[in-house]
């Protein structure tokens, strides 16, 4: 059992949002009634507003990426629970551009339904709306019907690229096409050596033996198909990187963006060491990593784990990734 310092699980989210908005008051504004956060200084010249959202417990996703160059608004749901359709509707109405609003949705049933209901309501209000679905988690790739791959850490890359395109004045169909293109070209895999603890009780969400690694864990602590014995880091990273490369099959001239993402309780010291080893591995495989980001972007409360995300790029997507951004987490 792990004790959370926050002893009021019921008010944890509201308290955290209060704090977050006070600290980043120059960048974000909270509409508490509407249940969303919006950019204080949205990019001028956008024709389409960008809205994302999902359950909380994955901070800094999505609230940390609200601001010029990325999201116009984010809708936080309760921990690991989809936001209500009303939050999404209110946020969409508040930030819709003259050509409507784009929803960036991680592939989970609850999120799909609530964003879908909001989209139906927007249609009745005459506000054009389209959806980009992020489904990068290679651990959930299956043939045939089913819920499909889960949406995980690639979400921040998708939000970055689409945000830059929206800044350039892309219209809704252009953003949709770009979104489909980039989501098709990114995959992630996550591992954990210890599950997260549940905020209400402090109990672990699942048990792992001392020398086991959950291989392919989900960002809500969804169990993987298997746990594997602990092994040297380079071997573990090969086991993660090789299937990602096999699924993405980047051509020789196509560089990748590499995201090394801590799931909540892995030290930065380790994350940079992981990054170093993955870079060497990619080099050995003949893959150029053009950009990389290391840190916590999409977490699972205090899970001791990390994920690797690769996004295959072309000149346009690299330019969009490089375009200026000013949010609580990413600024360049």
């Amino acid at each position, binding site marked *: 059992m792990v004790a959370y310092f926050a002893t009021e699980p019921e008010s944890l989210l509201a308290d955290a949002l209060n704090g977050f908005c006070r600290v980043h008051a120059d960048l974000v504004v909270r509409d508490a009634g509407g249940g969303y956060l919006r950019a204080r200084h949205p990019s001028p010249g956008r024709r389409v507003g960008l809205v994302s959202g999902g359950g909380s417990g994955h901070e800094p996703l999505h609230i940390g990426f609200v601001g010029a160059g990325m999201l116009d608004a984010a809708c936080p749901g309760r921990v690991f629970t989809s936001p*209500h*359709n009303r939050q999404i509707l209110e946020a969409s109405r508040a930030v819709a551009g003259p050509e409507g609003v784009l929803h960036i949705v991680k592939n989970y049933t609850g999120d*799909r*339904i609530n964003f*879908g*209901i909001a*989209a*139906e309501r927007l249609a*009745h209000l005459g506000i054009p709306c389209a959806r980009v679905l992020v489904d990068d988690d290679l651990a959930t790739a299956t043939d045939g019907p089913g819920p499909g791959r889960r949406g995980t850490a690639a979400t921040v890359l998708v939000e970055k690229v689409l945000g830059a395109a929206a800044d350039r004045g892309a219209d809704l169909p252009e953003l949709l096409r770009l979104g489909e293109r980039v989501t098709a070209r990114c995959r992630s895999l996550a591992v954990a050596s210890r599950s997260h603890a549940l905020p209400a009780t402090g109990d672990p969400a699942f048990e792992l033996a001392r020398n086991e690694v959950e291989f392919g864990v989900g960002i809500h602590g969804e169990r993987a198909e298997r746990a594997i014995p602990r092994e040297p880091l380079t071997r573990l990273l090969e086991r993660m990187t090789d299937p990602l490369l096999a699924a993405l099959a980047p051509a020789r001239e196509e560089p990748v963006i590499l995201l090394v993402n801590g799931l909540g309780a892995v030290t930065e010291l380790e994350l940079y060491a992981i990054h170093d080893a993955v870079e060497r591995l990619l080099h050995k495989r003949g893959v150029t990593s053009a950009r990389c980001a290391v840190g916590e972007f999409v977490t699972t409360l205090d899970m001791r784990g990390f994920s690797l995300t690769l996004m295959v790029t072309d000149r346009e997507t690299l330019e969009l990734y490089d375009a200026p951004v000013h949010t609580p987490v990413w600024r360049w």
Partner: protein
Amino acid sequence: MTCDGVFTGRWVRWFAESVSTTEPELTDLDRRVGDGDFGTNLLVGLTTTIRVLDGSPGAPGSPETPPAAGPLEMMAGVFLDEVGGTSGPLFGLVFQELAAAARAAGPVLTGAAVEQGIDAGLAAVRRVGEAEPGDKTMVDALLPAVTAVRRAGPLPADRALALAAGGARRGVSETARLRARRGRAGYLGDRVTGVPDPGAVGVALLFASAAGPVTALSPWWERGVTRAHLPGTRLDGPESGTDTGTGAGVPAGR
């Protein structure tokens, strides 16, 4: 009968009465196939709707007659904005489409608007819930409801709603025989075969309540299943779906 705002207001109130009376049965059903909150969510939504309705123009005792769309729009707004879970807002989508069709038809609800509203509601639920016919969801009540109305041709709204109720009830009986594929029940497989889908029951209650409050659920699907297995019973004609008098819990002539 003039199917104006007084008619739709009464329909919404009777629907609330039906759900209030049958809530324990709905909850029991949902405990068997879902997480047990369906009846409560529906009831909370309708109680709130009635409160909104009571404070609006056209409430009993007030002079103006509202357009038929008014009460349906209020119900849609409450279910979409304030009801939790997944099924509440999905019902809100159906109400939203019924309201939009009623609004387009003018101050008085028509049979064509009923058909159009159910059809659009069905399409919205299929888009958002990604459910197909046969998945054991509310789609399985909405689809036979719209089919029954469409097959009958031009009708006044109250008659169209009675046909929709009959179609939806036959759909409910069918869901009892289906294996769930979507929603929480999707994880339960054969364990929920024999139990009708609560969402489909809710749809049938909605349409049946246009003729009066429904006082009991259980005869619906139990008799429906039995009849579905009796050879020679006419299940597809409009008449078999409109038996508002005998044992269906709907008092005739209201």
